[in-house]
C-alpha cells in the first residue's frame, strides 16, 4: 500500500464539518445583535405609526395603559437621568477611592481579603437589592429624613451604587496599576508625600482608564431595572428642575421600571402600549450602547499609552 497524503476522505470532510459547526456557534452572537436591533427597530417603527415622534420625544406625560393614553418619554427620561446622576454621585467617588486604596495603600494580604469581598457586592441579584432598599434602607433613612416616602429614589440609588462599586473600582484599579512604578519612585525620591504623588502624578496618568470606568458605571445604572422597580415607586413624572433635591425623597419611574410595569400588565401584541415597550427599550439600548462604546474607546487609548 502506498502512502496516502492527499486531502481526501472521511477525515477531511469531518474536519470541515466541525470547523463549520464552530463558525455557526460564533455567528449566533452576531445574529443575537442583529436580532436585538431588528426587533427593536421593527416594533419601534410600528410604534411610531401610531404615535407621533413629536408626542414621544417632546411629550411630558407618560400614561401607556389607561385611557386616555399618552406616550411622552420625558418623565421616564428625566427619571432615568436623575436616578443615574444620584447613583453616580455615590458610586463613582466611592469606587475610585476604593481603587486608590487597593492599588496604592493596601498590602498584599489585605488586598487578597478585600478584593473578593468587594466582588460579592456585584454578585447579589438586583431583585434582592430592591428588597433591601424598600424594607431595610428606607425605614432607616426615615429616622434621618422624616419626609421620605415609602417608595423613593434615594434608597434605590444607594443600593444600585453599592452594586456598581466593584465595576468602577476594578476597572479604575487596573488603570491605576498600569501606571509605571518608576513614576511613583521618581516622585517619592523628590521628597514628596505618597498622597502628593498619588494626586499629582498617578491619578492624572490613569485619568482615561478612570473615566472609562465611570462611563461604564453610568451605563450600568441606566440599565438597572429591578431595584428601581421595587424601591423607586412607579410614578412617571418629571423632575422639577427648580427643586431637584426634593425629588430625592419622592417616587419616580425610570425607563426600565416603566418597561416592567407594561410587561406585567395584560397587554396584547397589537396594542400601542406593547409597541411603546420597544420604543423605550430602543432608547435605552442606544444610550447604553453609546456609553459602552465610548468607554471602550477611551480604555483602548490608555492601553496603548504605556505599552
Amino acid at each position, binding site marked *: 500500500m502506498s502512502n496516502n497524503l492527499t486531502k481526501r476522505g472521511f477525515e477531511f470532510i469531518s474536519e470541515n464539518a466541525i470547523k463549520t459547526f464552530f463558525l455557526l456557534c460564533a455567528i449566533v452572537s452576531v445574529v443575537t445583535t442583529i436580532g436585538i436591533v431588528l426587533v427593536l427597530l421593527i416594533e419601534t417603527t410600528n410604534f411610531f405609526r401610531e404615535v407621533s415622534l413629536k408626542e414621544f420625544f417632546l411629550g411630558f406625560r407618560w400614561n401607556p395603559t389607561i385611557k386616555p393614553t399618552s406616550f411622552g418619554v420625558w418623565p421616564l427620561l428625566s427619571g432615568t437621568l436623575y436616578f443615574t446622576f444620584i447613583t453616580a454621585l455615590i458610586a463613582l467617588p466611592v469606587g475610585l477611592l476604593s481603587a486608590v486604596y487597593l492599588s496604592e495603600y493596601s498590602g*498584599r494580604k489585605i488586598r487578597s481579603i478585600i478584593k473578593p469581598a468587594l466582588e460579592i457586592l456585584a454578585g447579589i441579584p438586583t431583585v434582592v437589592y430592591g428588597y433591601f432598599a424598600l424594607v431595610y434602607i428606607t425605614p432607616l433613612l426615615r429616622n434621618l429624613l422624616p419626609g421620605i416616602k415609602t417608595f423613593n429614589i434615594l434608597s434605590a440609588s444607594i443600593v444600585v451604587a453599592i452594586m456598581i462599586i466593584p465595576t468602577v473600582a476594578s476597572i479604575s484599579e487596573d488603570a491605576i496599576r498600569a501606571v509605571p512604578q518608576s*513614576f511613583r519612585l*521618581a516622585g517619592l*525620591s*523628590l*521628597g514628596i508625600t505618597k498622597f502628593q504623588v498619588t494626586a499629582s502624578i498617578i491619578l*492624572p496618568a490613569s485619568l482615561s482608564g478612570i473615566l472609562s470606568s465611570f462611563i461604564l458605571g453610568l451605563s450600568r445604572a441606566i440599565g438597572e431595572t429591578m431595584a428601581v422597580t421595587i424601591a423607586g415607586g412607579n410614578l412617571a413624572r418629571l423632575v422639577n428642575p427648580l427643586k431637584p433635591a426634593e425629588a430625592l425623597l419622592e417616587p419616580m419611574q425610570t425607563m426600565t421600571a416603566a418597561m416592567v410595569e407594561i410587561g406585567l400588565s395584560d397587554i396584547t401584541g397589537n396594542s400601542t402600549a406593547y409597541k411603546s415597550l420597544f420604543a423605550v427599550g430602543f432608547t435605552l439600548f442606544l444610550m447604553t450602547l453609546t456609553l459602552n462604546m465610548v468607554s471602550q474607546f477611551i480604555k483602548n487609548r490608555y492601553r496603548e499609552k504605556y505599552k
Partner: protein
Amino acid sequence: MGIAKNDIVLEIKNLNFYYGELQALININLEIKRNTITSIIGPSGCGKSTMLRCINRMNELIDDTRTEGEIFYDGRNIFDSDVDPVKLRRKIGMVFQQPNPFPKNIFDNVAYGPKMYGTRNRQKLREIVEISLKKAALWDEVKDRLLDKSLSLSGGQQQRLCIARTLAVEPDIILMDEPASSLDPIATMRIEQLLREVTDDYTIIIVTNNMQQASRISEYTAFINAKERRSGFLVEYGRTQDLFIKPQMKQTEDYISGRFG
C-alpha cells in the same frame, strides 16, 4: 563651624540589609566626602543599587525588608525614629537607571518638585526651571519647546531632564543608579560631562557597571563584591586612581582586570 570640600558628609556604619531571609548587604562601612563624586562598582547583583537606596530610605517602600546599622548624614542618623524620610529625600535626591520623566511637559517636570514644596510664584518657578535645565546642559536644546511632552525627547535628553528635575529641588547629595546604562555613548559622554560640572555644588554617589566611567568621573571609588547567594560586602574603598592603579586587595585586582564579573 568650618566646613570644606572633602569633609565627611555621609557616614555609613555597619550597614546590613535583608530582603526577607536573604541578606543583601553585609556590614558595609563607608565615608562619603562632601562635593566629590564617588563611584560604586561591582559585579551585577552585588547590592550596589540596594546600598544606594538605603541612603534615601527608598528600600523601605519594598515589602518584607529590614535594615540594620546607621547612616549619618551631617552627623544625624537617618534611621532615627524622628527623621522624616520625606524630608530626608528632599536633601538626598535620586536619578534612576531608566529615564523616568513624568507624563507632563518639560517645564512641569522640572518645576514639579518646587511646586509640590509649595512654590506657587510663576516667575520664581520659571527661574528655577531655567537654572536647573542649564545646569543639566539641556536648556539650549529645549528652551523653545518647554511645553512639549517630555516623552518627545530622546533617551539621553530624558535622562538629563530627570537630572534637572532632581537639581530643581536643590538637594545636597544626588544618588545615581547607573544613570547612563540605557544610553548611547554620545549621550553618556554628555551626562558624564555635566556631572563633572555640577560637582562644585553637590555630592554625587554613582553606581556604575562601567569601570572606565568610574575612572573617568569619580574621585573616590568603592568596590563591592558578592558572596554566594548575592550578599554584597565592601572589598575596598579609596581614591579612584589608587584603587585602579594599585589595588590593595586581590579581588579588586581580579575584578578591574576583567578576570571575573
